[in-house]
């Protein structure tokens, strides 16, 4: 990668780890994560905030990383799908997505998992309707959403 005058040192805590790397000031957070840092769990589906495949948590808040400039988030806390599991195992949401067959192709899954994590953090026991409204910003073309909604509600049921 050629260093140009438009490059800068990106510095943030990603999935609990302090990371510093060279990025371009034109990079979105999504581009910086994927193409500079090698964190490719967040996916590019539309690059304009319509599909939610690139969703990450920025200081715990759900954002579409394609709509955030990388240069804006220096010093912040970022959680991607890679940060959901622990050394002990998968997060309950991840496990429920597997058990409920809540993914077919899997490209939207990282975004749904992040968005669902944000939902359950704010509302640990959502109704089906609340879940459907919260996840309306995430597109899935394979499943018709049925099994995704069931997986999220099941994960919520398992929480005290």
């Amino acid at each position, binding site marked *: 990668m050629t260093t140009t005058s438009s490059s800068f040192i990106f510095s943030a805590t990603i999935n609990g780890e302090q990371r510093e790397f060279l990025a371009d000031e034109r990079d979105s957070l999504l581009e910086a994560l994927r193409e500079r840092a090698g*964190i490719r769990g967040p996916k590019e*589906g539309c690059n*304009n905030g319509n599909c939610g495949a690139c969703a990450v948590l920025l200081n715990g808040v759900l954002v579409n990383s394609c709509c955030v400039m990388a240069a804006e988030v220096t010093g912040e806390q970022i959680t991607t799908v890679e940060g959901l599991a622990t050394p002990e195992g998968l997060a309950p949401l991840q496990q429920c997505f597997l058990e409920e*067959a809540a993914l077919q*192709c899997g*490209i939207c899954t990282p975004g749904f*998992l992040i968005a669902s994590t944000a939902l359950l953090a704010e509302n640990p026991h959502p109704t089906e309707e609340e879940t459907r409204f919260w996840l309306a910003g995430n597109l899935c073309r394979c*499943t*018709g959403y049925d099994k995704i909604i069931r997986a999220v509600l099941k994960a919520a049921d398992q929480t005290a």
Partner: protein
Amino acid sequence: MVATDKPAYKVVGTRPVRPDGTDKVTGRAEYGADLRLDGMLYGAVLRSPHAHARITRLDTSKAEALPGVLAVATNADFPRVASGNLNLGEGTANPMWLVDNLLAGEKVLYHGHAVAAVAAIDQHVAEDALALIEVEYEVLPFVIDVREAMLETAPILHDDLRTAVRAAGVAPAPDRPTNVATHLRLEKGDLDAGFAEADVVIEREFETSMFHQGYIEPQNGSAFWNQDGNLTVWTSVQGSFATRDQLSAVLQIPVSRIKVVPMEIGGGFGGKINVYLEPLAAILSRKSKRPVKMWMTREAVFQATGPTSATYCRVKIGAKRDGTFTAAHAYLAYEAGAYPGSPVGAGAQCAFAPYNIANQVVDGFDVVVNGPKTSAYRAPGAPASEYAVEATINELAEMLQIDAMDLRLKNASREGTANAVGAPWPTIGAEAVMNAVKNHPHYTSELHGDDVGRGVALGFWFNGGMESSGTATVTADGRVSLNMGTVDIGGSRASHAMQLAEVLGLEMDDINAHIVDTDSTGYNGVTGGSRVTFQGGWVMHDLGMAIRQQLQERAAGLWDVAADAVTYDDGSVVGPDDADGQPRRMSFKEIASKLSNSGGMITVSATSKRNTQGPAFAGHIVDLQVDRDTGKVTILRYTAIQDVGTAIHPSYVEGQIQGGAVQGIGMALNEEYVYDDQGRLRNSTFLDYRMPVANDLPMIDVQLIEVPNPGHPFGVRGVGEVPIVPPQAAIRNALYDALGVNFYQTPVSPRVILDELLPKD
């Protein structure tokens, strides 16, 4: 009529966690755009702002001179390719037109048509370079509507195109330029006599929009053209081998010089069979000597890939007072986009498939227009023609004052009746599905509320066969390593591993299922057509039986008994009792551990191209409510009933049906292509191309009917295509129930509904 003779399976019919699941919920699964290679460049594509124009000047010199740009490609970089016919499984491609679609030749034929491609050190530089490419256009008149394109006065896309007539008794087309590429006809019985017998004749006409497959992962393609002449391509496509074959045709290099490495694929639904970026990445790599990665913007995905045909369909049905259909005619005009090749042929064969009609004619027209070249989309061609038929039947039922399901049942296709081309149906579940709809608690329940309605419709799809291959190796620890060449778009690692485990008496987790590149297993057709679990299941059967045979021979040697005295039972080899009268039995794991010392490890390969597909029928029931102020339609309840043959993994079978139904709901109510008066696509974002989101929908209830396919070891029929067929008509029929208005177009968007409901000036 649910089959009662289904064998007791151990693995088939259970719901294990899929083998690739953990990678896909932890972000580890590698999709095409996730690829990273040392020295990798980034590609980008310049696209036409016009619907139809002649390129009078194309100058890439300023882009080439930009620091950080390593290669630029135009149509001139492709070898000259002759016209031909390349079979892609779901549809065909003419390599000559394919090249012009990849990068425009003399003319651009649609808004978004690719004109030039660049490779640069990063995406931003590549995009900067596109702005430096100078193109001058002579703008030409354009045509997008299929019926306008058929007029003699229409702007002509291809001066050398003539109508191919594939219809007995129809005069050859005149030798003059046209946009009608094909006129085909299916004919059986005596149409005039059939209509003469009818007491009632109904004729209705319908229009459907272009619809995009809407996969969430944009097209991608990466390539490295080594200096030894070998090309490696990494991509997320439905057919690695189909991609290899297209690359060979457009680049004019032998298939053995091309290796296609399948990455995980983020949806396709038929739209990821044709190549778009892979050949450009290959040419850019050849020029730059570096690996090149490309992926499409969402705007380009809408403008230049996919969609399915917009159509105009006219349906005429004659019936006796008792409801017996005496004759039927369908006129189907499907636009193909900028190059010939709409799925009108399949649409023609499917139109009347659920019904036994002695006298019928279907005329199909394949028409080019100034839009993106259409590609396969889930049951290609079937949703439009069957929507028109199912909507017409709904009106006919009312004219005859017969229950809509009773009318369908009276005319149902069944085993032995003739299909559209006169061949007898095999064992099919059409009647079983119709009865299940009629008796479903949803169909028989009361519906309450204002402006609510209920509709039903049926759907049919052939289900494909094509070719599959695989290789299996027994590992020393008693498991099986399975190499397959059909990409896993929604659970086929699981469905294959389960079938192989069933044959071997193992658990699914005993099978390590891998999707490998085109050099690492035999030929495989595309993942599509609802064929993969069907044909792959045959391969699993053949692999499993070959392994069993070899294990029996090994056991015979170890026990020193005759080979034919050893059998295979429930995951073990079993021999005659030994001298002490003790039974001889070794589990799969025990004998696997002895293979190395008894002749070596066991590896088997199999290829299957069986032609014993099981056709699929579905029936959907929908309740909906219309908001008279906004035109918004709320789906209150939705039930999808389908003959699935045997459900290998019921959760993924249900998921296919739910997903297909919801795509159909999108077609029925919201999704459409909006072109302006300059022929430019105005809604090429997910915000404006309005696919269903989670809060648009209720749960989608699924009832699986299992009428096993007698042409498959586990009775598999294939599942994924047919559920997209019924929704457009079911919803349209429900809207009539709710509002007393018959709509003759899809989508029936809020605007269309308000046009009907609001007072006219």
